[in-house]
């Protein structure tokens, strides 16, 4: 008789937001390999289910999928409740993988594009992370991991609207970490450099691009090792240190 509750208590479920991207798939696979159960969320139910089935088959763990739209802020409260029920309160963490790079030149002319970039990467993330922060704070346990970007470390002409959104996300995560320290809830900021995803695919001049699998492993390591912030791959930390050290009067004239 005692077998059932014990099994339920040992369940650990992680929610992946924006789960159909190659990076998210790699994070999910890495978690599944370490025997975490998964809840996958995203906009495209067919793709989500395809990814969920694949993970279930390859790793023999429980994987479910749920519809989620970062822009539909009003739905986020119900979504959290849905996740809580679907996981039978076994949720131990969230990895936020959704993002929208957008079209920088378009965003310069059309505020709707700029807004979409800011709404998805910043507002959508703030909304859902705040709700889950409350949930985990109540449990005094759990982690919130979000994929920010090195683009948020310094504004550049080629992607500064996206960069501004990610900079906002990075600062939001810092504050959240500060607020939750001592509550048992960890907040992990991931700053990917170049990962081999559709966001970077085909862009000229990229160097040392990491495979999604490698990035996924590093992200999960960062979460489980209790890191606050992690560059992916790791050499981006010194690279971004240098990028941030360039004086603005020189930086403003650089073309990149």
């Amino acid at each position, binding site marked *: 008789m005692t077998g059932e509750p014990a099994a339920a208590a040992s369940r650990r479920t992680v929610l992946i937001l924006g789960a*159909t*991207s*190659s990076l998210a798939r790699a994070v999910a696979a890495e978690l599944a390999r370490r025997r975490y159960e998964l809840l996958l969320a995203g906009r*495209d139910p*067919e*793709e989500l289910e*395809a*990814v969920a*089935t*694949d993970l279930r*088959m*390859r790793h023999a763990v429980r994987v479910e999928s749920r519809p989620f739209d970062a822009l539909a802020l009003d739905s986020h409260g119900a979504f959290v409740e849905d996740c809580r029920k679907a996981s039978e309160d076994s949720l131990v963490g969230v990895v936020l993988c959704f993002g929208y790079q957008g079209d920088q030149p378009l965003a310069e002319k059309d505020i709707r594009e700029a807004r979409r970039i800011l709404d998805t990467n910043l507002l959508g993330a703030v909304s859902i992370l705040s709700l889950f922060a409350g949930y985990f704070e109540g449990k005094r346990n759990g982690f919130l991991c979000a994929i920010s970007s090195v683009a948020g470390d310094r504004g550049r002409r080629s992607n500064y609207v996206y960069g501004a959104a990610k900079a906002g996300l990075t600062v939001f995560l810092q504050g959240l970490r500060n607020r939750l320290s001592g509550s048992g809830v960890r907040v992990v900021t991931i700053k990917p450099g170049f990962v081999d995803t*559709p966001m970077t*695919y*085909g*862009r000229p001049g990229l160097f040392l691009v990491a495979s999604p699998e490698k990035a996924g492993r590093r992200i999960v390591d960062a979460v489980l090792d209790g890191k606050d912030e992690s560059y992916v791959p790791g050499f981006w930390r010194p690279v971004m240190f240098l990028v941030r050290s360039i004086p603005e009067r020189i930086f403003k004239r650089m073309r990149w």
Partner: protein
Amino acid sequence: MEPSVVRSLSGWGRYPVETCRVFRPEKRASLEEILASDAESSYIARGLGRSYGDAALNHQGGVILFERLNRFVAFDPRTGVLECEAGVTLAEILEFVVPRGHYLPVTPGTKFVTLGGAIANDIHGKNHHRVGTLSNFVLDFRLRTPRGEMITCSPRQNPEAFWATVGGLGLTGLLVSARIRLQPIATAYVLVDFLKVSHFEEAIAAMAESDHLYEFSVAWTDCLARARALGRSILMRANPATPGDLPTRSVDPLSPGRRPKRSIPFDFPSGLLNATTVGAFNSLFYGLHRTTSRRLVDLERFFYPLDSIRDWNRMYGRRGFVQYQLVFPLETSRAGLTEVLERVSASGRGSFLGVLKRFGDANAGVLSFPFPGYTLALDLPVGDGLIPFLRDLDAVVLRHGGRIYPAKDAVTTPESLAAMYPRIEEFRAIKARLDPKNRLSSSLARRVGILRS
């Protein structure tokens, strides 16, 4: 819009090298988006790029990589039916099914191919004489046609599209997913009988006489040996091992230990593999083997000896190599093989890998390669005069009623191909129905005139 990149691509033989616009979709819906866009006038699907020549190239056109459309869909351990997306590799399938007591029903000499590529080239393996090609185990597949439909094809449902797509070189539609029936296994080992013969005629006599006793049969053939040693061979024929055949207390009959992976870290100088070096290797290889029976070998080593050396194609240097695989009908095999082997050995074009095998029955695939007879596969380094040499071989093949395998070809002409594949008109008619605007095309399809340009 789906991102893409223009880059140089080649097949496994690294000849030819062409410029293509390469797409790498991650979602099924992207396939439709790419096909519907006018970014390129035509597209061809590409798996792991293990076809040797230009079957998965589209010069100045679009190439769609399937590496990220690689999801498992379903597996029924009771029936052994596995469904997965076209980009799943045979290596991934094996990793999944071997511990569950199943194996691929048909496998080529490498597991680094995708399921989609395997179907599009209707691959055969060492058990063709018993079970035929992979398509005999394909229950059905989903095909995204350039007309925007998703159709399910099986020998009963849309049979025309089914038999044009297996071996259809990716020209009838984009393979999205397929269901295949796997082979149950009791162990991941085979018992191999090695038979050393000093002339290829002895090899084909032995195959004719006793291949039916073996589930798997193949011969390594020395294509440089001449005269009385013409095509001296080592037959490797095997049957599945039972748990009782394994040494006692062996850990797990379904998981042989992993072997270290080696790789060729740089291009060997072109010309390093020549008649002298390959001749020496062949003599050594031939000399080292003995006629022995019931040697226990794990399936990995038996089926994929070269997979343990990553990038082995670099041995042929920058200029690359061409694989030439032919089949002769039973009646003409002896005469045809004699002529081919004499020409190859006299040319001194070193073929590291000469593989000889007896095929079983053909299937209904419109462009499927195998038919009853003997097949020979050669690797020939690209060098001066190779193309005229291969055109001459084409003439020999045709004179003896044979044909070559398009998956490996990089050289043949429309005239030769049409003579070798008499059902090509039928293929064109089916393609015209599925793809009226020729949105799917490849360098090979244009070069050999499957699509008239």
